């Protein structure tokens, strides 16, 4: 007679490690770990050996040494005597600036193009389709180079604003305050004199007041059914007190206009040509992808929603903004996040137009001058990794907050 017994625990055989599903996963993981360990060890040893034969070492001391080069666009104090670390920080901020402005612009381009592509105006819809296809199917590097060249050639240079030998200048400033040149866009800058803080405080209070009023009208509408006007009172609350105070205080906020002095415009605020071209190129490229996401998101909303809204008598524009887009956002947001990340990563091509982002400072001139390739590139990758993970973390939080609450 044979009887079925549970296998005894001590009857463990080596072959179980590979044949028994209970143990096999341990075997695999152990093997994977060993392989990984040897791979890392092997690479590390090669590195040590190669550095030894070349007489080099890994050291981040170069970050403390003076950089020696100048950077044109610096959001923090920096000159050629500042350290390489400082130069990297300047580069980081420049990258973040391009990414931030680029994402906003790309969203505007993308949403506009995506909505217009579904417009019932045939020619506009086709035009948007052409825009999307052209920009999606040509490499971003080529777009950056082309758009930079267009800006360079299409816009006049500062010297065109000068009158020469009695001739009127070839180009003129817009309202005497904006200048669009190949070197950048110049605009007046507000100058805050004494007493200006009162105006600013009043203005901030007006903003708060405006929101309070709008909230009040909404409450009035829902609670008592009184439909108070909203448009013009909001505007009035926003601007009237601030303007009154501005004149009462004796016009404390002035404008500094850009002026052509010597080689360039001086004064005012200035967006550099390389910044404008890069941001625009990245935004319009990424916008084409976002447009597709937006279109897909809108199409995902059932047609009944539009019809229901129309049956309620809502105007077509408001159907889009009040009914369709809020629902479509759930579909649009996740791919949009990855497009924002792509834009940030593509901004590393800035060097093609001479914009000094982190790849241009730390991964460019600093690397060239110090020859510290490994250190600089590791730092560069760590930075991009941090940004990517950071943005996706923030966006995931937002994403969760607008997720359909299923019950």
């Amino acid at each position: 007679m044979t009887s079925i017994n549970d296998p005894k625990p001590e009857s463990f055989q080596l072959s179980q490690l590979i044949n028994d599903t209970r143990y096999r996963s341990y075997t695999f993981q152990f093997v994977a770990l060993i392989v990984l360990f040897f791979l890392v060890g092997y690479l590390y040893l090669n590195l040590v050996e190669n550095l030894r034969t070349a007489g080099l070492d890994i050291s981040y001391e170069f970050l403390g040494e003076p950089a020696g080069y100048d950077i044109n666009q610096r959001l923090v104090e920096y000159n050629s005597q500042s350290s390489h670390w400082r130069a990297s920080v300047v580069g980081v901020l420049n990258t973040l600036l391009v990414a931030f402005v680029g994402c906003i612009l790309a969203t505007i381009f993308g949403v506009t193009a995506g909505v217009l592509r579904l417009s019932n105006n045939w020619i506009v819809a086709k035009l948007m389709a052409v825009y999307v296809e052209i920009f999606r199917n040509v490499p971003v590097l080529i777009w950056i180079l082309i758009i930079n060249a267009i800006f360079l050639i299409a816009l006049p240079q500062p010297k065109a604003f000068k009158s020469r030998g009695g001739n009127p200048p070839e180009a003129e400033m817009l309202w005497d305050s904006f200048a669009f040149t190949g070197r950048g866009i110049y605009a007046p800058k507000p100058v805050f004199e004494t007493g200006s803080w009162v105006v600013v405080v009043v203005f901030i209070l007006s903003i708060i007041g405006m929101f309070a009023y709008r909230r009040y009208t909404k409450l009035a509408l829902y609670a008592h059914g009184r439909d108070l006007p909203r448009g013009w009172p909001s505007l009035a609350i926003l601007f009237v007190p601030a303007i009154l105070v501005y004149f009462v205080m004796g016009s404390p906020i002035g404008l500094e206009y850009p002026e052509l002095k010597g080689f360039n415009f001086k004064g005012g605020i200035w967006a550099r040509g390389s910044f404008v071209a890069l941001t625009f190129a990245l935004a319009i490229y990424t916008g084409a992808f976002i447009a597709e996401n937006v279109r897909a998101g809108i199409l995902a909303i059932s047609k009944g929603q539009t019809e229901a809204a129309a049956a309620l008598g809502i105007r077509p524009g408001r159907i889009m903004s009040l009914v369709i887009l809020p629902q479509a956002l759930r579909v649009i947001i996740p791919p949009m996040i990855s497009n924002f990340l792509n834009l940030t990563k593509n901004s590393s091509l800035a060097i093609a137009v001479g914009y000094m982002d982190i790849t241009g400072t730390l991964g460019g001139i600093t690397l060239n001058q110090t020859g510290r390739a490994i250190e600089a590139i590791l730092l560069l990758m760590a930075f991009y990794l941090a940004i990517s993970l950071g943005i996706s973390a923030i966006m995931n939080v937002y994403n969760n907050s607008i997720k359909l609450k299923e019950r």
Partner: protein
Amino acid sequence: MSDQSIAFVRHETLPPSPPPASETGIVKWMRENLFSSVTNSILTLAALYGIYSILSGSMPWILGGIWQAPSLQACREILAGDSAGCFAVLTERWHQLIFGFKYPQEAYWRPTLAFVLLIVAVAPVLFANLPRRMLILTGLYPFIGFWLIWGGTIMAPLMGLVGFIVAYMVFQRLERSSFAMGALGGLVAAIIFWTLGGYVSDAMSGFLALEQIPSRDMGGFMLNIILGTVCVSLSLPIGILLALGRQSNMPIIKIICVVFIEFIRGVPLITLLFVANVVLAYFLPPGTTFDLILRVIIMITMFSSAYIAEVIRGGLAALPRGQYEAGDSLGLDYAQSMRLIILPQALKISIPGIVNVAVGLFKDTTLVSVISMFDLVGMIRGPILASTEWNGVYWELFGFASLLFFIICYGISQYSQWLERQLATDHR
């Protein structure tokens, strides 16, 4: 005759009168599609004006272009002050733009043939209604393509192919005991065979040999295509493994895959290329000379496999749970249920996503121009714009490059949309 009124009775029906002019044909279409409201009319007019200004600006420039001239100076003389394109740079440097400047002229037929064969080989994968027998060519293509482009004796790719066949046979023999054993056995058999085959192909290096061309000599648009196809096809299997690893319930393997994927996806391709160009040499054994193009292929493959892994993970997640359970309930082990049930379905639904990654990757191959490789963009920014003859030609070259990329990428994305419609089995 009497004047009597006769009641009029019509005997036949009136022929239908045409609808009013405003309700028919092009007029109706225009009214509905272009001028349905004031805003729409304004948009239409603005769009028409935009199209007109772009065309009127660029058409004379394109149509009046010069196609035959030895240099920019000569071209400017021919134009005599007119503003028109100098497309002569394209005819003059055509070979350099397509093949790079070092690929031997007499061998241009080889990459061309390889490209044509590539289309033939890929076709049965893309279109399911083509005869299945064509897949044999697809399987053979990597070896033929390698032989055509890089040259050398045909024995080397032949040995590679036979190695795969041997590995497959060993795998089938051993698979019965377990999948892992089969895979391991196949791998070992292939390595042994390739080592032995290496001696054979060395010994027979003259057999059916084409002129050997080092990969350093590849350039131009050919390099973009090579990088694109090689990296995408290599990254597919790696991407599948990574996706499975990320879904696996073995924590260590899962962590390794997640870290790898998130790391690669978190950094720009350009930094990975810097690594290939500047840093990777330090991590290789001293004295190894590792071709730049090979290093770049490794890095781009890693890059695209991380993205493809994410696409496939999406496909795996989209499969209903029942499919996994069905596999288990049939008593299939992990490898079998993946191979026979899960992956065929998951891959099918991720094809459009994979195609998108492939298009993106193909476009990104232009970044190699930043690390001193002469792909299409690199050729333009490097040797051609730096030469005394063509210094200053800009729009023509970049317009040409955009056009080439547009044709290929637009073609692929149209295919992907077509496929999406084919695969859409739900009825909406």
